[in-house]
């Protein structure tokens, strides 16, 4: 099961403190794990929402840190790509996986797969026994669609005002956090539906 999908910044943004990551999109899947924990069972919906947001912020920070360490180590030169070069941007993207220990922030251990496209990070948090090969492929596919449909490579990204498009994309390719074994035909069928949604 995928627990959440995030789009966030992975390099310095002047308005933020060092190490902070701005969240551009976040989506938690499934029921809140807090309702099964003794500690969080008594929380009211508002408190629960806050805890969820905190969890997501922790993930974003950890991934951001991992990305910057990874980029520092590989001494990558970030190639600026412009709208229209989404395929190139994806090819140049660096990737990795962060082990999130149990309790930090989810009650069980998780694996956070990330894809870094220039200053943006696309993160998928999965349960570690999940098929990470499939998760990796799904993440790449989702990222490609986000880059294409949300014009994320140019100035003035529209992500914040187009979250409904990402919701619709996820409902097809990652329904309720379920990774799907889609061969190209099944994928095409779903992507047609997504394209139809985006066109309206």
């Amino acid at each position, binding site marked *: 099961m995928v627990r959440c999908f995030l789009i966030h910044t992975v390099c310095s943004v002047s308005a933020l403190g060092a190490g902070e990551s701005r969240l551009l999109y976040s989506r938690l899947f499934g*029921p809140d794990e807090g309702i099964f924990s003794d500690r969080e069972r008594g929380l009211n*919906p508002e408190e629960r929402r806050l805890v969820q947001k905190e969890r997501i912020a922790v993930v974003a920070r950890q991934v951001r840190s*991992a990305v910057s360490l990874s980029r520092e*180590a590989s001494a990558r030169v970030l190639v600026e790509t412009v709208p229209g070069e989404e395929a190139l941007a994806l090819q140049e993207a660096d990737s990795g996986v962060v082990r999130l220990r149990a309790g930090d922030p989810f009650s069980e251990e998780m694996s956070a797969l990330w894809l870094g496209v220039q200053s943006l990070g696309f993160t998928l948090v999965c349960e*570690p026994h999940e*098929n*990470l090969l499939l998760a990796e492929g799904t993440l790449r596919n989702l990222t490609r669609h986000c880059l294409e449909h949300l014009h994320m490579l140019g100035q003035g990204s529209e992500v914040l005002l187009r979250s409904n498009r990402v919701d619709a994309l996820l409902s097809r390719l990652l329904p*309720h956090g*379920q990774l799907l074994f889609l061969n190209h035909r099944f994928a095409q069928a779903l992507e047609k539906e997504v394209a139809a949604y985006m066109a309206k």
Partner: protein
Amino acid sequence: HYHHGTQSTIIQESELQKFYSRLVKLLQGKELGHETIDSLQRLHLILSATKYTRTLPPELQKKVQSLLSSPKEHFQVLSSAVLRETLPLSGQEGNYNQENISQLNSHAAVLLLSQAGSRADLSSLCAQLLRSLESRQSEVPAHSLTHTLPILNTILTLSPECLTDDHVTLLNKKLVDWLRYASITQGGGASSGGFFTGPRSRQPVPTAELDGAVSGDFFTVLCVGQGFTEDQWMNVYSFSMLRHWLLTYHSVLSGNGTADTDDRSEVDGSVVSIVSATSSSGRLLPPKERLREKSFQYCLRLIEQSDRKAHRKTDTDLQKACLVEAVCILDCVCEEDASLVFRAFPCIKALFGRLSSDLSFARVLLPIAQFYLNHGEMAAVDCESVWKLVFGRFPAELFNDHFLAHELLRFLRLNLKSLQHRVPQYTRSFPNLLKFLAWDSPAVVDDFVDLLPSLVTAGTAVELLHTLLDLPCLSATLVLQVRSTCLPISEPGGRGLQSPDAYRNPSFRGLFLFLLRGDAGSGDTIDRLSTLHELLAETADWPRVVQCAQTVPLLLHIFFNTVITGADEKLLSHLILVMLERSSLLLNIPEYNKEIQRVFSSHLLRFCKLHPSLVVDQSHELLEFAGATANVYSKEGIYTHVVWVLGEYLSVSCDSRCSVRLITSCFEALEAVLFEITSSVPPPGADCPAPRVVTTLMSALAKLASRSHDLIPRVSLFLSKLRTLTRGGSVAWCSDEEDLVAIVTRGEELWSLLKAPGVAQSVLTPPPHVTTPQWHRDTNVAMPLRLRALTSLTHSQ
């Protein structure tokens, strides 16, 4: 560059209310168009950016709620997103008993899931969903059916108890139908995604394999067609959740399942088929066993299908993912029913044979290794070649594959006990395994924190220590290795760097080959370490090397903590020698040397405290180290601690072998150093000796003198001379006035203490019963304790 979310939080309350009213008006209109969509999106942005959950005005909330069932998907999506960010109106918290839950679209379901507040809510939801599954498909809108499985799966993750046994049985049956008996002809070519057969009736065309051949067997996720039928979609969704389903409800170890086959047959009331050596038709098996059998067959078919050459890269990738999944599921069902192992192994073995020489399939080979580990013993299969890959080729050649590293290290963590038992080469493979750490320390250090203790064995501990200390060198070497395979020899960028040339130079080959070795046991370290460090000197600021160096102190702590439990003195002695030797023999990275010395110092103390006789054992080497004045300046940290342990533990009460001659020779060695450093200027390039070194030397001399009183006059003489010399003010060997005062004060204290040798002995060399209280075993302390105990017994109320 990006829209600042914070902008919206500065919105004034009045502005917000105006916005709400405008939106309500929009929603009241007949035609809901782009403006409404944009406004709803804006509303979502405002709500999600604020920390505290807002409540919408009831009228707006109701309007948004009604959009959940709008025919236009945009409104379903947006209303679900908006409502997830607000508090539900009181009295309306999650209607989980709605009649029409089966009509729920996916986005409304998302909302329900997020609002679920208890297990009971989720159980109701599950019950409703399964009811809709049971009813005939024609009564239910097509799309909602496919989302049933993902929703159930996400609930199962957190709460398997939400499904009753009847539900589980029903799903077992349904999964069998979808997995094994889905249609094998292509769905209609309708462009809407294949739920409806085309208006023109066609001659049924069979589905195809990924290489174009016509499918000859049942439908799986690796079959293609122009369009798909509904049950083929369900085949995909079913397989996608199959492993999780089996793990949750079929696992022998799961909390729900019973661990004993006898128990199970009693509960079921049916005979559990233990012998399924022949491929049975499965008709007579109960649903759970039937699903197991069909899953088995599905996996075997996937493995066969993955051998076909797909036309597209995405399909090739999918084949790999399917292989992983199939092997994992086979592992799972073989755990449940051991007789399946004999049917599965030939296939797994063949798969291994097919893939083992191709490193691009490394991630598929890991689940295969897991299978071998779990079932290899039972099937009496030789696993040597598997471990050669996992502990040999993978770390040696794929150390820079992040995902493989993550999965391989996880495999080790999960199977630690098993591996330690059954795979003897595990503990010898640390030179290879540490390559993952040397390459990408931040990403995997956490895993090594967990794994390192298991790699510490008496036989390899010394070699492991050397390897850990030289991890930054390994890091640099791996970078050079990768670069030399990527860049041609005459790469201009390499000019000016000494290390790539050194790497390729045949006379230094041996050094690098030692670092790159795969197994332990061929030697603790190399003689020409200093040469190696010189060759790699320029790599000390490479980011990978620096990141690696930062993790070494932590790992050393773990190493020493592990070693100290149950290690014999011989090993500890050897390790002390290594510490002394290596404290100056490290790659010259800023702060690295200091940090390592700090770790060494603290563990040297621990070792000696636990086994004081170590000091007498190693007195020769310790004295040699302490007697070298140069060490005061270059290795101040560890030097201080060596002097301290000599002073503290070189006594008869710690070890009866400690002779007067030994004490005297130690005294003389330390005295010489103290004389030297307090009578001359520090050597060129060195700072003044740290005050701590001077005071530690003085204290050590005093301690030694208190054990051999002939030496007292010598110390006293020195200390009084020191007082005189420093009365003049500043001295060449101490730049800070306060430090000098502290040193002199300490000298005076020791001097007065030594005037009464008996007292000095008690204070500086306290007998054991003072330092290790014995409580009730101590005759003096015991009496009051006994009296108190007797009193409380006789006076018990």
